[in-house]
């Protein structure tokens, strides 16, 4: 039980970085659709840098920079060029995926460095949850801390509230003197950097090494989990744990249904996205609208200005 829980928390870690990062970006009104490609590119870059320099930390930093640049490109094309963020993000998804294959050929299946385990004394001895939350490594602790900090920031901090105002009603925020574009660029850079950390958390910890299409699919899952989690970091992290659990169940079921060995591991992907259908079911939506008090809590709406470019005038 304790060990399964530990596996689950570790498996969810890269997704938490990516999905919480994307939630921060989207809260400002910018959609960075490029996740599936930028996670691949940063996973490859992070591994390549760590392999070349021998420093895992340098790998994480390099990966964060790569994905932050991609996110800033999306933000720039939306904020300054008034382009469709979905279109630019989608092109970058494919471009980054191809780039990761092309630039990563020298690093395919070479053994490289990885994040070292760092159990916290005493706390990791707690039954059931000790190993899961305190018997891991810095990458996993970072994701857990990020979730709590991001949740606090968006719900309580003044800057967090201003960031949300920018994503909900940019015109009103602008009228009150909040620098809309600056917040959006910052949110894209921070969210993008976290997406990059997700890539490094794959290639340097959870899915060690590099191969062609190493993390394909996880970017789309992260984007789906952001919606599933209603743009709220705690719920987004819960969605990541849920996905991790689905993956573990699929793996455990493999020996039971040997004929489905190739299919089962892919099932969590459609299941996750299909769960969006249920979350968005019109009946549930009507109930939520009729009871705004708990409806808002259970079925939050997207940021009102999501993906909409803003022209101050």
């Amino acid at each position, binding site marked *: 039980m304790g060990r399964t829980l530990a596996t689950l928390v570790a498996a969810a870690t890269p997704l938490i970085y990516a999905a919480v990062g994307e939630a921060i970006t989207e809260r400002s009104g910018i959609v960075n659709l490029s996740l599936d490609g930028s996670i691949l590119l940063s996973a490859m870059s992070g591994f390549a840098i760590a392999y070349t320099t021998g420093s895992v930390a340098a790998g994480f930093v390099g990966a964060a920079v790569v994905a932050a640049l991609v996110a800033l490109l999306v933000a720039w094309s939306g904020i300054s060029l008034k382009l469709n963020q979905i279109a630019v993000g989608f092109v970058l998804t494919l471009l980054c995926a191809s780039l990761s*294959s092309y630039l990563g050929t020298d690093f395919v299946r070479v053994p490289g460095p990885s994040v070292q385990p760092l159990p916290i004394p005493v706390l990791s001895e707690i039954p059931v949850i000790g190993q899961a939350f305190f018997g891991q490594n810095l990458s996993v602790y970072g994701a857990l801390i990020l979730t709590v900090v991001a949740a606090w920031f968006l719900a309580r901090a003044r800057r967090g509230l201003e960031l949300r105002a920018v994503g909900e009603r940019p015109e009103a925020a602008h009228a009150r003197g909040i620098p809309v574009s600056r917040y959006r660029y910052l949110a894209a850079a921070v969210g993008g950097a976290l997406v990059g950390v997700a890539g490094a958390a794959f290639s340097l910890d959870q899915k060690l090494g590099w191969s062609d299409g190493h993390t394909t699919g996880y970017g789309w899952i992260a984007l789906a989990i952001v919606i599933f989690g209603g743009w709220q970091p705690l719920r987004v992290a819960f969605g990541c744990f849920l996905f991790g659990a689905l993956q573990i169940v699929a793996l455990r079921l493999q020996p039971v249904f040997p004929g489905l060995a190739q299919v089962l591991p892919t099932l969590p992907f459609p299941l996750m996205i299909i769960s969006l259908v249920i979350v968005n079911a019109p009946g549930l939506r009507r109930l939520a609208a009729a009871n705004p008090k708990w409806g808002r809590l259970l079925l939050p709406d997207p940021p009102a200005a999501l993906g909409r470019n803003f022209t101050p005038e």
Partner: protein
Amino acid sequence: MNRGPVRALIAVLVSLFLTLILLRATGAPPYESLAVIFDGAFGNPGRIADTLMAWAPLVLAAAGLVVTFAAGLWNIGVEGQVTAGAIAASWVARELPGPAYVLIPAMLLAGIAGGALWGLLAGWLKVKGNVNEIFGGLGLGFVALSFATFLVIGPWKREGVASTSGTDPFRPEAWLPTVGDTRLAPVAVLLAIAGIAAVAYSIRGTRFGLRLRAVGSNPASARLLGVPPQATLVRAFMVGGGMAGLAGAVIASGIQHKLVPAIAGGRGYLAILVVLLASFRAAWVAPVAVFFAAISTGAAQLQLQLDLDSSLGGVIQGILVLVFLLTGGLLTRWQSRKAAASG
């Protein structure tokens, strides 16, 4: 003011420049690499045939996307619709007896039906389930991929050992007839030309196209004018999915001659790039797709001749479309600044 050609020229030059820098930086011979791609796409009749066979399904999928884009939809589920069409066509190829002139039309129709069904599901999710078509389409794409994998290793597995390399080949009657000793199947090319022509006509010259564009540009006023937005969106998904499904049938019957798990092979996603570069216009899809098909086909030679990864083709395609989009944005900004300065 027509800045289309200027924009295209700038985009081509800039992306060529970026590609050459990338090649030099990664230690690849820049001009030789491009020459190998060109030669790999057009160097002899066999290669031209391969390029045309890559072109046909790409044009069909892109034609379907022109329909859904006209209605303002991001049909990223096109990849799944291609897969669904290929599965349906493969099912007919396996089950239906009879000669080629019965079997092949049946396969193509089954492909259309399979793709349309998958499009219909995405459309329902969108209008009934309130699910953004990007995620509904992706989810359905994963489902189609899982289903194809399941068929290949399960019920339709090869004689003897199951393997993900595909089913047994279809019987010869299910193969699109080819010309000479090349792999060119004229039926595929004709279908692609007919498909894109039909879409070009129906977008501009029919009630259906008018409705699509009305809903695509402003759903609220379309409703006021008596165009039901939801029904129109679902119809767009079915037509777009049907074209993508036909592309899948062409791949199964004209290229693979069997069902493989990832039978769409990213062609649906590539078709989205084609339509973006064609600025959503049907008339430009066919020439733009020639370029994309040539790069995809030619890039296969990179591995054989220069030991470069064939993903370079995808890099070039991606750079070109990205630069094209950014150039459009920059030109617009530059013009509006000039207008503001002079006015």
